[in-house]
């Protein structure tokens, strides 16, 4: 088992004919992801890396009713529509790579997906990978190895960095999820950590947070109430970030006195989570707990 995606995941790529969609479709196919169809309105009839392209998800589903997940590479101004199309077809997860989606749109489609019980990963995220089984994202495959550590992160490259160190330490990952760098995301830390807790294959959990918002603090207070059931280690980026400035991600901003790294580190430590000072400490912190 892994969480969210595995060998049974049958994928439609929305925006498959765009530069990014095309490129990553190739890489995902190489990785073994079961991509059944692509969708780009008006481009129905084409093929991309041998994958048939349709005008709509409905048409893709007619031919491939087993499709159950989507990854979206559609540009920001058309992305909402793509998300709604995936929602109305009951696909889950819907992995939304697209960056720069207006937050008003995100708020609405995320609430709608949640109402319907569907999971959106993103927006503005690297996607999900269950190493060795399925990759629904843009992460470099080589740093991941099948294993027992679940990784959840608000960041992209920093996640690859830490996944790499986990792999090199011989641990490997069950599933790695980048939930996205926007202020409002489809999934939050508490939800993903809970999925990892329920997943038998996952023996340890890594949380990669950053400044902005209070998602880490909320996870901490949740863990404080429920206890730490599996080994956990965290890293928080942005200790040297100044208030009031957006650090790349739309969500990475300390505002109204909230969202600083210190508060997050302290809250997690207070809940009993091992927090790394520098990224490379993560594998050791996990090993220390697993050995016990």
């Amino acid at each position, binding site marked *: 088992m892994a969480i969210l995606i595995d060998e049974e995941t049958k994928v439609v790529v929305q925006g498959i004919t765009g530069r990014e969609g095309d490129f990553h479709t190739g890489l995902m196919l190489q990785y073994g992801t079961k991509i059944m169809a692509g969708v780009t309105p008006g481009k129905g009839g084409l093929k991309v890396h041998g994958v048939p392209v349709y005008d709509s998800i409905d048409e893709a589903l007619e031919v491939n009713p087993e499709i159950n997940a989507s990854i979206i590479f559609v540009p920001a101004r058309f992305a909402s529509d793509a998300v709604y199309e995936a929602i109305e077809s009951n696909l889950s997860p819907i992995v939304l790579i697209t960056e720069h989606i207006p937050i008003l749109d995100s708020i609405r489609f995320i609430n709608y997906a949640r109402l319907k019980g569907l999971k959106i990963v993103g927006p503005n995220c690297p996607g999900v990978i269950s190493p060795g089984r399925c990759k629904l994202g843009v992460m470099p495959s080589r740093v991941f190895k099948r294993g027992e550590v679940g990784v959840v992160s608000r960041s992209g490259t920093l996640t690859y960095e830490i996944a790499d160190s986990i792999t090199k330490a011989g641990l490997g990952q069950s599933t790695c999820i980048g939930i996205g760098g926007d202020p409002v995301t489809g999934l939050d830390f508490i939800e993903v950590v809970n999925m990892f807790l329920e997943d038998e294959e996952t023996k340890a959990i890594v949380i990669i947070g950053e400044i902005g918002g209070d*998602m880490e603090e909320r996870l901490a207070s949740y863990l404080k109430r429920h206890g730490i059931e599996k080994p956990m280690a965290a890293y928080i980026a942005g200790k040297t970030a100044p208030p009031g400035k957006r*650090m790349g991600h739309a969500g990475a901003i300390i505002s109204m006195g909230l969202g600083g790294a210190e508060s997050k580190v302290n809250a997690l430590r207070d809940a009993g989570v091992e927090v790394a000072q520098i990224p490379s400490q993560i594998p050791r912190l996990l090993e220390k707990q697993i050995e016990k």
Partner: protein
Amino acid sequence: MKLHEYEAKKIFLDEKIPVPKGKLAFKPEEVKDFAEELGKPVIVKSQVLVAGRGKAGGIRGADSPGEALEVARQLLSSRLKGFRVEKLLVEEKVDIERELYLSLIIDRSGRKHVFLASGEGGVDIEELAAKSPEKIFRLHVNPFLGVRDFEARKLVKAIGMRGYMSQLVHVIKSFYRVSLKYDCELVESNPLALTTDGRIVAVDARMIIDDNSLFRQLKFKRRIEEERGELTELEAQAIKEGFSYVDLEGSIGVIANGAGLTMASMDLVAFYGGKPANFLDIGGGASSERVKKAVELQLINPRVVGVLINIMAGITRCDEVARGLIEAMKETGIEKPTVIRMVGTREKEGRKILEEAGISYLETMEEAAEKIVKLVGGM
């Protein structure tokens, strides 16, 4: 992007949210003329996109047109937190009975808009939230149905303003309408005032537009091209080039790919005793041309004494990075201690290019950060 107070108040006025009578002025004489026209005391407010204008002396009262002229002269020749004051908003002085607080922001955890309201306004809301959180009341907005009157009434009652129900319900609903119409991350009035003659008036107005919405907020797109506000020159330049860039106070320039990795690189510099000079995220898949631009921005920055480059290449290619680095060094002719760590896609090719140019590289970001701090001497 932040709007100026005068811009936000123009929108408030359009949406029938009462604001004081006011005028935008660029010259002291315009301020005087408007004060004369009003025939009553005025407030002269510097229109600069920094927080805490009041405390910094950027907002001044004047009882007579002559005083207004003098105040305007002083403000227009001053700087506020480093920014030149070029525009003033002159307004009638409102007789305030009670100051309230009202804002509409985005609640990340609730994934909804949320109103914050307090019967105690005019104060620093962060302080109030820290000291007396029970005095701040919240109203979450259903994303499909918007604010409904019964909810707005509850909020008004909570802040003890039941006697001014219809005016305040109107302001609350208008805030949400403004927020949808202009893609706002923040709509705020602090203070929202009850005047001595029983009117509700937005004495201050703040709005922040979601940068991601500028493709459909065309009016603001033009404005942001004219005036980025609250940015240093280097920030403006870097953003123009399409980088995520933030100026910091240290001496080591930081370049990485991805926001999280760039922040982690900054933090590592600090961890090993150095001080980051900035945050420069080149994003994913940067060409050698873009890498060159990024490195140039660091080399020409006089405060930067050394540069850390940290690349975890996925879509980005190490050979492009290496080439960009070398070209930037060649073209600027500026030599500064530079440490590069580079792994991933086309690592071998990239390393070869660096080796040929006699530039050393490291395997891990920790080593790289430690080394650059050593090289520049922990300044």
